[in-house]
């Protein structure tokens, strides 16, 4: 993929990514991630 098409795809995906982050923050996903990350995840280590 070259030139203008590539630039358009970059802008679209980056904009979509920023919107997704904002939406995730808006609906409280950060606290879900934080809670999961600061406690031992038994599934992750093969015990859950």
């Amino acid at each position, binding site marked *: 993929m070259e030139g203008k098409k590539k630039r358009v795809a970059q802008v679209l995906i980056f904009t979509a990514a920023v919107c*997704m982050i904002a939406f995730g923050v808006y609906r409280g*996903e950060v606290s879900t991630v934080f809670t999961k990350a600061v406690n031992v995840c038994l599934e*992750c*280590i093969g015990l859950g």
Partner: protein
Amino acid sequence: MKLSHEVKRKIIQIAAFGFSNSYLGNLASGRLYQGKWKNFCNPGMNCYSCPAARFACPIGAMEAVSTKPGSAVGFYALGFVLAIGVIFGRAICGFVCPFGLIQELLYKISSVKKRIYKPLTYIKYALLVIFVFLMPALVVNKYGIGAPSFCKYICPVGTIEGGIPLLLTIPSLRTMLGKLFTVKAAILVGTIISCVICNRFFCKVMCPLGALYGLLNKISIYSMKHDAEKCISCGKCSDVCPMDTDPVTKPNSPECIRCGRCVHACPTCALRQDFK
């Protein structure tokens, strides 16, 4: 003294590994770091249940959200990965992924060395779709809660970075050992042996994060260019490629981790990588 590209890359990898896992003191106590950095995702694969880990694992973070009732997609972590991926592509794998560094060190162990059977590289896309996106959201218990399926059933990173250090330091966890851990330990042993034989086996075959970044390699701002007029088709670039790709025919292959070995091996400077 002029440092070679590989030495510079290794220094960046070690620095990224150290920054991602800077709470080494926690390894002795088995406690996890619980500060504000855990609100953010690590760009590379690094288990958040590792006592030394500073950040959340992006794959674990996506699954943690999608396992909740009514939250089929983890937008926060997915958006983070897409934003990083569209800028850097798989350069993240080549420069800052902690498990990428571990794999490169494993490959230094003397043994028979093999290239990967190409169709196996598609497995990581299946793992991404089935175990990261579909199963956590669709395979749920009677309360509508799913399980982080990739972390639970597959991820050898969690076993080696989280499981083993925690089992060594927290005796009560050892009473919970069962079939699941046996399966995950077998996957870990298989992955380690495969990484000794085949360079970056986990990246090539199993990594769902690498799959996502790889899909963005074609459009990422940091990309590779091949100048056909300068190329003398000597094949040195593909010979040194740790990911078994051919930079001449596919400079932006989804497998390319932007390590830059091919760029520096090229005798005519026909390959270059930059932010354009």
